[in-house]
C-alpha cells in the first residue's frame, strides 16, 4: 500500500529543505558581498564595482569561477577524509536551520529541545575542520585543524553557559517559547553580560577574527583549507558564512527578541537583527589583530568561563529571591 500522508509529508519536508537551502545560498552570497563592501569602505576603498550595480553580482561571478575550477587533490592527501571534510562542515552548518525561527510561524520544525539541538549540531562542524586539517596532508593544515579543535571545544563551554541563563529565565528550550518570553523586554537588558560572553564565544566558534587562529592567514597561509580549491573551497566558504548567520540568528532569538518589533513583519525584524549582528562581526574583524593560540585559551578559560559562571550564579540568586 502506498502511504499517501507519508509521501505528502516527505514532499513537504523536501520543499522546506529546498527553500531553506535556497535562502541560505542567497543569504551567503549577500553576506559575502556585504563583507567585501564593508571591508572596502573601512579601508577607504570601494570594493567590487564592476559586475552589476556596485558589484552586487560579484559573488555569483566568483561562484561560477569556483565551480569551473580544477579539482585539485594533492598527492599526500588522505583522499576520503579530504573529500568528505567540506561536506561535513557544510552539512553541520546547515542543520541548525531546522530550528531557527524566522518569524512567528516561519520555522521548519519547532522542536521543544530546539536550542539544545542547534548547539549540538552546530558543533559537529569542528569534526569536518579537523578532517580537513588531517586529510590535506599539509603541515599548515594540520596545525590549523588542531588549533580549531582546541579553540572550538574551549569556547563551546562559555557559550553554552551564557545561553543557560536565558534558558533559566524563559524556562524552555524551544526557540519559539524563548522568543515569546521576551514579549515585554528583550533578554539583553536583563543579561548584558551573558550576551557579551555569548557574542565573543560565537565569534570564536565561527573562527572569525580576532579569533581566526584556525585560518591565521599570516601564520598558517590559510590554515585547514590551505590545500582546498574550487568547489570544495567554496563549500568551506559557504559554511563559514552560514555559521555566522546561525550564531547571529541564535543571538537575535535569545537576546534581541527574535521576530518581535513594531511596524515591520516579523521575518524582516529577525533578519534585520541578524544582519546587524553580522555587520558588527565584520566590523570587528576588519579592525583588530589576532590573538595568539595560548592567549585565546587563557581568555576562554580564565576570563569568559568564570564570568559566565558568575552570571549564572547571580541570575539564579535573583530568580530565587524574586520567587
Amino acid at each position: 500500500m502506498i502511504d499517501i500522508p507519508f509521501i505528502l509529508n516527505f514532499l513537504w519536508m523536501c520543499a522546506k529543505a529546498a527553500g531553506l537551502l535556497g535562502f541560505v545560498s542567497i543569504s551567503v552570497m549577500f553576506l559575502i558581498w556585504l563583507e567585501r563592501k564593508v571591508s572596502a569602505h573601512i579601508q577607504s576603498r570601494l570594493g567590487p564595482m564592476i559586475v552589476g550595480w556596485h558589484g552586487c553580482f560579484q559573488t555569483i561571478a566568483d561562484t561560477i569561477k569556483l565551480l569551473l575550477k580544477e579539482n585539485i587533490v594533492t598527492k599526500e592527501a588522505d583522499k576520503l577524509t579530504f573529500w568528505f571534510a567540506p561536506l561535513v562542515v557544510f552539512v553541520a552548518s546547515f542543520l541548525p536551520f531546522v530550528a531557527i525561527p524566522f518569524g512567528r510561524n516561519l520555522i521548519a520544525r519547532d522542536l521543544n529541545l530546539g536550542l539544545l539541538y542547534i548547539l549540538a549540531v552546530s558543533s559537529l562542524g569542528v569534526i569536518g575542520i579537523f578532517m580537513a586539517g588531517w586529510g590535506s596532508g599539509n603541515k599548515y593544515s594540520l596545525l590549523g585543524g588542531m588549533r580549531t579543535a582546541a579553540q572550538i571545544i574551549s569556547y563551546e563551554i562559555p557559550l553554552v553557559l551564557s545561553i543557560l541563563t536565558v534558558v533559566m529565565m524563559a524556562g524552555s528550550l524551544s526557540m519559539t517559547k524563548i522568543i515569546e518570553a521576551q514579549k515585554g523586554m528583550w533578554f539583553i537588558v536583563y543579561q548584558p553580560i551573558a550576551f557579551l560572553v555569548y557574542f565573543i564565544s560565537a565569534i570564536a566558534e565561527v573562527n572569525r577574527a580576532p579569533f581566526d587562529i584556525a585560518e591565521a592567514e599570516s601564520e598558517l597561509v590559510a590554515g585547514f583549507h590551505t590545500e582546498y580549491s574550487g568547489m570544495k573551497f567554496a563549500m568551506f566558504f559557504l559554511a563559514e558564512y552560514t555559521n555566522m548567520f546561525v550564531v547571529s540568528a541564535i543571538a537575535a532569538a535569545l537576546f534581541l527578541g527574535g521576530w518581535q518589533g513594531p511596524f515591520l513583519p516579523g521575518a524582516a525584524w529577525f533578519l534585520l537583527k541578524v544582519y546587524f549582528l553580522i555587520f558588527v562581526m565584520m566590523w570587528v574583524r576588519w579592525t583588530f589583530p589576532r590573538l595568539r593560540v595560548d592567549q585565546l585559551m587563557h581568555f576562554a578559560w580564565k576570563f569568559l568561563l568564570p564570568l559566565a559562571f558568575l552570571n549564572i550564579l547571580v541570575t539564579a540568586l535573583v530568580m530565587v529571591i524574586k520567587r
Partner: protein
Amino acid sequence: MLETEAFEVSFGPQHPSTHGVLRLQLTLDGEVVVECEPHIGYLHRDFEKICENRTYTQVIPYTDRLDYLGAMNNNFGYCLTVEKLLGVAIPERAEYIRVIIAELNRIASHLLAIGTFVQDLGAFGTPLLYCFREREKIIDIFEATCGNRLTYNYYRIGGVAQDIPDGFVEKVKGFIKYLRPKLKDYEDLMTNNAILLVRTKGIGVLSREMALDYAITGPNLRASGVAFDLRKEDPYSIYPRFQFDVPTRATGDAWDRYRVRMDEIEQCLRIIEQAIDNIPSGDFIAKVPKMLKVPAGETYFRTESPRGELGFYLISDGSNKPYRLKCRAPSFSNLAVIPDLVRGVKVADVIAILGSIDIVLGEIDR
C-alpha cells in the same frame, strides 16, 4: 606517557608573511619553535659583481633595488661614498633636497614597516591599507620629482638628477599637515590596542648586549635602549643643522620596535619642517665631468638607512668603474638574530618578531 615528535615546517619562500622570499626552516614541537634556520639567497642578483662592470653613474639604479622600500636612502649612501672619494663639494640646494627626500622616504618605509607588522599580527588589511594610503602621498611627491614610484634613481654623484618641480614645497607641507592627524588615528587603532599589546609586549626581547653583539642597527637597536643614530653619531650631509631627537625604548620587545618607528616618523617630520622652508637657490648638481673617473683609493661610508647602518665600501683603481663595491646591508645583520629570538616561542610569535625586525630581502640577498 604519550611520545611527541618534533616536526619541520618550511616557512616560505612562498608565504604570506616572510616579506619577500625568505625561508625559515622551523622545527616545531606542537606550536612551539624548537629550532629555526633562516635560508636566504632566493633573490640573489649579484649586485656587487654587477657594479664592477658599470660606471659610477650606472651603479645608482642598481642601488635602488637593494632596499626597495628605502631606495632614496640607498642612492644617498652610494652617492656620498663616491663623493667622499671624489672630494667634490655639493651645492647647498642639492643638500637640502637630498635630506628632505631621504627623510620622506624614511617615513614611507616606516609606514610600510608598521603596516605590514600589524598585518602580520592578523589585523586583516586595514592598518596596512591605511599606511599605504599615507605612503601613496609620498610616492606621488617622488613621482612628480623624479618620474618613478619605487626605483627612483634620483640622486646623482654631486647632487640630484633634476631640480625639484613646481609645487614641491607646498605638496610636502600639505603632506606634513595631512599626516599628523593620521598618526593620532594610528595610536587609537594600533598602538594602544589591547590585542596588539598582549601580542607584542615582551615578545622577542632583544637585550642591549645581544643587539650590540649581533651588530643590530637602526630602529631595532634603538628599541633596545641604545641611542645610536648615524645622523647624530657620525653626521653626514647637513644633518647637524637640524634639531631632532633619537627616539629610544628600554626593553627591546616587538612593541618597542614598533613604537620606535612611530616616534621616528614624528622626528622625520620635524627635520622636514626645518628644511623645507630653507631650501636655498642655486645649482642642484655640482660640476662633475660626464665621464666620471674616481681617483684611486678606498673608502667606507655609512649612512642611516630606514633599516639601520647602510655602508658602502668602495675601492677605486682610478678608472671609471668601481674596482670593488661592498655593501653592508642593515637587514642582513638584523636578520641574523632571528634564530636566537624565536627559539622557544609560539609560531604566531615568529611572525610577530619577523615583522617587527622589518627586513627587506632585496638587500639581504643583494
